[in-house]
């Protein structure tokens, strides 16, 4: 089957002129860390944590597996920049015009209008727009910029920030993140509170060679429920950019969290993100993810099921076009009895793109009666693309039930023929089949994200005739 599919990233590869209040020098030194900490007027314990992390970072080695990170020059990155906007403005009018233009093209105000519970939008390293509906404030939900949270809720942050969920020495890029993190979201849902509208933060990286190191910390107390949505998009530049964010989710007994994200960084970005959840007794974590952009992605959301009857659901879709390497997957550690997990992964590779599912499933000796089901499907659009599946399955308990399944294939000529015989063009037919392929994942996203994801896939696949 021959087809011409060209990708169109122009929609997201735009840039508006930025003004900066402050920008650190290129590269990472102790001085840069001191500057960041000073600028944020952080308490001493946080500074010490950063400095310790910096030491760990220098000691740790680069990963010796997965996609090549040779082109990533850690000395050519700005680790901290502050845009010239009034910090944390709550009204849309206060946001500078240039920044507004960027947000408008990404559809943020519309999303706001569709009655979302709150919006924290990150422009560079500062949250410039943050709005939380009064309703939730009354119930005690804390939805705050991470920088502010350090000042306002030091005890909570001290207790949970990179202590139990993601330890600083987990890997090199976590250590880097801990040293230079800036911005992000702090979300705490108190005991028994059910937040029924999704909370969302839209991140955006706009400085040339900009690094984005936002930290998301979500704590959901006993019996509480929340759906948190995060989206990312960045314009295209020539020099390599790095995104090394960190997401920590603590799901307490009987609580339920859904974390959805659409990541669409520009193609010269290295997206080396770390996401982890600790799931306690009877609690549920659901990860819904879409990876469309970035040149190289290494992202493996991880669930650690520590309580009995805990459950993890991972669903994700990855799309790799020309020059892209999407190395994604899921990790689940079953550490307690009667825990269960499902992983559903779909990937599309085209125009020489590489998609890899790299997963880990571990059943520890004390995880009796655990169940897990892994399902990976890959769709290949042409002959120059690559699709790999590398799942690691470790079972140390004999009462476990594990099933893994993967398929790789192409769009069948018969399906195309059928649709074309019904009057669709070849491009339309292909797009329709691809939409159907990722539908099980798209339907799990909130409406506006589902629309956006579908639109993105469509744009990525747009035929040469348009």
């Amino acid at each position, binding site marked *: *089957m021959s087809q011409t599919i060209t990708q169109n990233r122009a929609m997201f590869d735009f840039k508006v002129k930025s003004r900066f209040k402050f920008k650190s020098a290129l590269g990472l030194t102790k001085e840069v860390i001191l500057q960041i900490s000073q600028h944020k007027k952080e308490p001493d314990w946080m500074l010490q944590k950063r400095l310790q992390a910096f030491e760990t970072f220098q000691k740790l080695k680069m990963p010796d597996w997965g996609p090549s990170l040779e082109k990533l020059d850690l000395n050519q990155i700005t680790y901290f920049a502050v845009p010239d906007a009034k910090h944390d403005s709550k009204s849309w009018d206060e946001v500078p015009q240039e920044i507004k233009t960027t947000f408008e093209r990404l559809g943020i105000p519309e999303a706001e209008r569709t009655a979302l519970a709150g919006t924290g939008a990150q422009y560079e390293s500062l949250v410039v727009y943050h709005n939380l509906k009064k309703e939730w404030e009354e119930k005690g939900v804390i939805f705050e910029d991470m920088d502010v949270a350090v000042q306002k809720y030091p005890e909570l942050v001290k207790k949970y920030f990179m202590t139990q969920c993601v330890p600083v020495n987990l890997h090199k890029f976590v250590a880097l993140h801990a040293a230079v993190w800036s911005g992000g979201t702090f979300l705490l849902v108190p005991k028994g509170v059910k937040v029924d509208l999704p909370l969302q933060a839209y991140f955006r990286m706009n400085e040339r060679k900009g690094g984005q190191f936002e930290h998301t910390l979500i704590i959901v107390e006993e019996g509480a429920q929340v759906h948190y949505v995060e989206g990312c998009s960045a314009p295209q530049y020539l020099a390599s950019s790095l995104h090394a964010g960190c997401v920590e989710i603590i799901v307490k007994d009987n609580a339920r969290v859904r974390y959805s994200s659409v990541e669409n960084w520009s193609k010269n970005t290295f997206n080396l993100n770390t996401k982890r959840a600790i799931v306690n007794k009877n609690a549920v974590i659901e990860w819904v993810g879409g990876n469309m952009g970035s040149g190289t992605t290494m992202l493996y959301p991880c669930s650690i099921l520590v309580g009995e009857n805990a459950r993890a659901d991972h669903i994700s879709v990855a799309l790799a076009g020309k020059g892209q390497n999407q190395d994604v997957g899921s990790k689940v550690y079953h550490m307690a009895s009667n825990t269960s997990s499902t992983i559903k992964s779909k990937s599309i590779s085209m125009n020489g793109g590489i998609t890899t599912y790299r997963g*880990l499933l*571990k059943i520890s000796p004390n995880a009796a009666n655990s169940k897990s089901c892994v399902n990976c499907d*890959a769709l*290949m*659009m*042409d*002959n*120059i*693309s*690559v*699709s*790999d*599946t*590398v*799942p*690691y*399955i*470790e*079972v*140390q*308990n*004999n*009462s*476990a*039930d*594990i*099933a*893994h*399944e*993967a*398929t*790789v*294939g*192409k769009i069948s000529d018969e399906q195309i023929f059928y649709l074309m015989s019904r009057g669709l063009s070849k491009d339309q037919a292909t797009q329709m089949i691809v939409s159907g392929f990722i539908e099980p994942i798209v339907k799990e996203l909130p409406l506006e994200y589902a629309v956006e994801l579908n639109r993105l896939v469509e744009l990525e696949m747009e035929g040469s005739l348009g």
Partner: protein
Amino acid sequence: MSLNLSLEKNEPDWLMQDRKRAIEQFNLLKFPEFKYGLSIKLKIPEIDFSKITPEDSNLEIIAPKEVKVLQLNDSLNNQEVQENLFITSQITNKLEAFHRAFWNQGILIIIPKGKIIQEPIKIKLSPTNSIVNNVLVIAESESQATIIEELSEGKEYFSNYVEIIAQDCSRINYFSVQKLNKDVFYFATKRSIIKSSALLNWFDFNIGGRYIVSETSSFLGEKGAETNILGLFYGSNEQQLDIASRAVHAAPHTKSDMFTRGAMNDDSKSVYRGVVKIQSNANNSNGYQKEDVILLSKNAEANAVPELKIDNNDVRCTHGATIGQIDKEKMFYLMSRGICESDAKKIIVHGFFEQVLKKIENKDLYGEFNKIIENDITN
């Protein structure tokens, strides 16, 4: 074991060069860690190779007259041996380097062009010392044969390298039954090159040995080549099993199907690694991979790494892996019929293996395997 020792034998130059290169590699390479992914690790201790001295051991072979069987050591000047011996080997591993540097015996089997050999060719090896053995099979075009390899006894180290060159339109079955003593380190490499429209069926059965490192691989080099890789393993006591199957599709219209089942008992531990690699020129290829393991005891451990590496979109590939336990209902049913627990377990394992066994289209062999399962699988 010294370099001189093996070069004393007055061997042809090409082989001496090959051994020399292998010794260089052997000295450079580290003993493998048997570590996969983040935390899969087999407990296989490092071998002190200086203490291993492979000796010649009696190799029993029963073959019909039409088949040409020669001692490898006597046919080193044979053009075909020179061209094909170790053609499938790229030394990436210390154990393989050791094999290539210090192999001391082997046989060459040539199945002549167009000959259909009905009676199976039987190879029996029951050494009482360490051995480093080669089996080189050249199946000439349009030939057909079944080869059964039976490995028993053994001491310390057992290294076996089977190489099959399946020429155009040949159909070869190679069945291997490994029931070595329970203290032997078994290192097996089975590799093949499959030419146009040829079919190679592998069957790898592992029940003996202490440490089992076994790789079975097929290189589908020409159009229409096909391979089936079947495997069964049973782990008991503290056995450590590293089982790998590999199919490389390097030509259009090629097909591979892998199916392995295992049962793990006592404190045994296994890793199954399956790889289907489809190269970019292998249009219209199909690759299937399936692995199931049942865990029979609390301390047994099973790991799986089923990989797909696909560089062509005009293919159909799937893989599946399951790891589970004996169905309690089935156990209850059997025990309610008056069968004791250990017998019930045996029956279930037998039934589980049956799915693979029945794919072997050879009645004698089928019966033999059943006997082995019956006798060797206890508690």
